[in-house]
């Protein structure tokens, strides 16, 4: 009797888990389904779950309806710019906060944490006018420069750097290594998971970002893919959902591929709260 009850319990639990998974996965499956439906199927009053013949033409239509190569190029350039700039700036700062002693260290680190709390949703106003004053609005810099210091990134790198044993650094110093060499040859290789987390978070975060490019761009030539995809709704109207969803796939697929390849690492990076 106990065994039977246990078995029923585990069957119910399997079913419930499948239902929960379905709730979170379904909208993506539906996106895929609609992106392959014909116009008639999308616009009919009856429900089409799986398109009769997949309309790959929708993807071609979506691709041609807006300058997607340009949008994707802009997105990738912005991300590359941010990641390179952040690494150049945050690694030395995190190293100093983790391994050097200096006056005002705690206060300065506190300032970084407070800066982290200042919402980007208000800072954008002066930054927008600053960028216009510097005549940068026709370039990608307004999307790159303001992200140069990421307080959370410094915090995260510092946590990892602090775990590198001091003896290693002392030994390297006896070998007459400079601090730059220590950072490059000891700190970075020893904190590879931390560095990977920071880069991963930057990549996913900025690929997906909508608010910042929305307020920092005035012309199509500098817009990233999120803005391009979001504007499909206006250009395609509310009838051609198949084309809109095909365009939407351009935005979703790269992140989903990364997610399928390294879900565990991504979840770990994103849920890192710094409280242990």
């Amino acid at each position, binding site marked *: 009797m106990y065994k039977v009850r246990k078995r029923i319990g585990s069957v119910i639990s399997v079913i419930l*888990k*499948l239902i*929960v*998974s379905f*709730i*979170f*996965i379904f*909208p993506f499956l539906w*996106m895929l389904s609609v992106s392959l439906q014909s116009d008639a199927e999308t616009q009919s009053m009856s*429900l089409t779950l799986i398109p009769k013949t997949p309309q790959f033409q929708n993807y071609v239509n979506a691709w041609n309806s807006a300058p997607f190569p340009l949008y994707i190029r802009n997105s990738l350039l912005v991300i590359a710019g941010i990641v390179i700039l952040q690494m150049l*700036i945050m690694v*030395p700062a995190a*190293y100093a906060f983790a391994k*050097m*002693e200096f006056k005002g260290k705690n206060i300065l680190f506190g*300032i*970084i944490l407070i800066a982290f*709390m*200042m*919402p980007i*949703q*208000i*800072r954008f*106003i*002066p*930054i*927008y*006018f*600053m960028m216009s004053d510097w005549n940068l609005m026709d370039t990608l810099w307004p999307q790159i420069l*303001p992200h*140069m*210091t990421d*307080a959370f990134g410094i915090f995260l790198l510092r946590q990892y750097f602090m775990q590198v044993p001091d003896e290693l650094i002392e030994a390297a110093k006896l070998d007459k290594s400079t*601090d730059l060499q220590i950072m490059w040859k000891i700190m970075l290789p020893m904190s590879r998971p931390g560095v990977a987390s920071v880069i991963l978070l930057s990549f996913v975060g900025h*690929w*997906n*970002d*909508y*608010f910042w490019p*929305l*307020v920092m761009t005035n012309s199509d030539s500098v817009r990233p893919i*999120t803005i391009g*995809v*979001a504007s*499909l*709704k206006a250009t395609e109207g*509310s009838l051609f*959902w198949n084309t*809109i*969803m095909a365009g*939407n796939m351009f935005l979703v697929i790269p*992140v*989903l591929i990364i*997610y399928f390849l390294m*879900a565990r690492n991504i*979840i770990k990076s*994103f*849920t890192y*709260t710094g*409280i242990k």
Partner: protein
Amino acid sequence: MKKKTTNTQESEKKYKANWKEKIKPYLYIAPAFVGIGLFTIYPVIKVLIWSFQKVNQLDTSKTKWVGMKNYSYLISNSAFQKTLLNTLIYTGGTLAIIMTCALILAFWLNKSQGHLTIFTQGAAFMPHVISSVSIALVFSMMMNPSFGLFNKVLTAIGLPASPWLTSSSTAMPSVVGVASWKAIGYYCLIIIGALQSISASIYEAASLDKAGVGVTLRKITIPMISPQLFFVIITMTIGSFKVFDTVRLLTDGGPNNATSVLVYYIYKQVFWESNIGRACAAGIVLLILVGILTIIYFKLLSKRVHYQ
């Protein structure tokens, strides 16, 4: 004589090296602080100053001080009052739904480490890594009153169709629903992480003392994960105060300002009304709300760490 000069030279050298060592850390953090100064401290001060001014961006010499006028306008303006109320409703709604679902899911999915459990966790987390643009597009398609999947399913099973995002009474609950769906998995996994950090020996000790499930939950589990619960509640609340993407993409603040929230209001003041002063005053309101929550968070956290 000669000896003395080498001595001073040496000490000078030493002094120089020492001095170099002393300023080195500052050089290492300097670029980071240039970034913080230019893009955080300066803008926040500027927002504060502008909130007391009538800003003329075309001719800055015409910018003038107006005291509290921007603030008094906001306080007496019904659209802004509605915006604040909407922000609070959105925050309360998402907080209640996400916390309930995330806690239930976390306690349930924490029990086993099987493949299906891991898969469910991964599935629940997935919306968090997807752009709000994609999610808003899919949901506005599914919530479309005439062609949308939701209404097709509702009518198929004999229920009345809903106007979803297009009616001022259902728009806010719809937005809250989408935002909650996107975030539940993220917070669920943070809570699971917290649950798994409690060492098994504590539970063993409790079961030796014949503590029941309820007692274990109340006396061990909840107190042990309370720092993370504080973190979750505070970040969620701050995040909700700053909501913009889902609102702008799903409803554009409408219908009839039913979903206009604080950041959306700021955005509109800047880009539609060109009223920088008012936008900045609204921005300071946001900053104060975020600040209060942050202070509460650190106060509670330090108290908690105290008796741990």
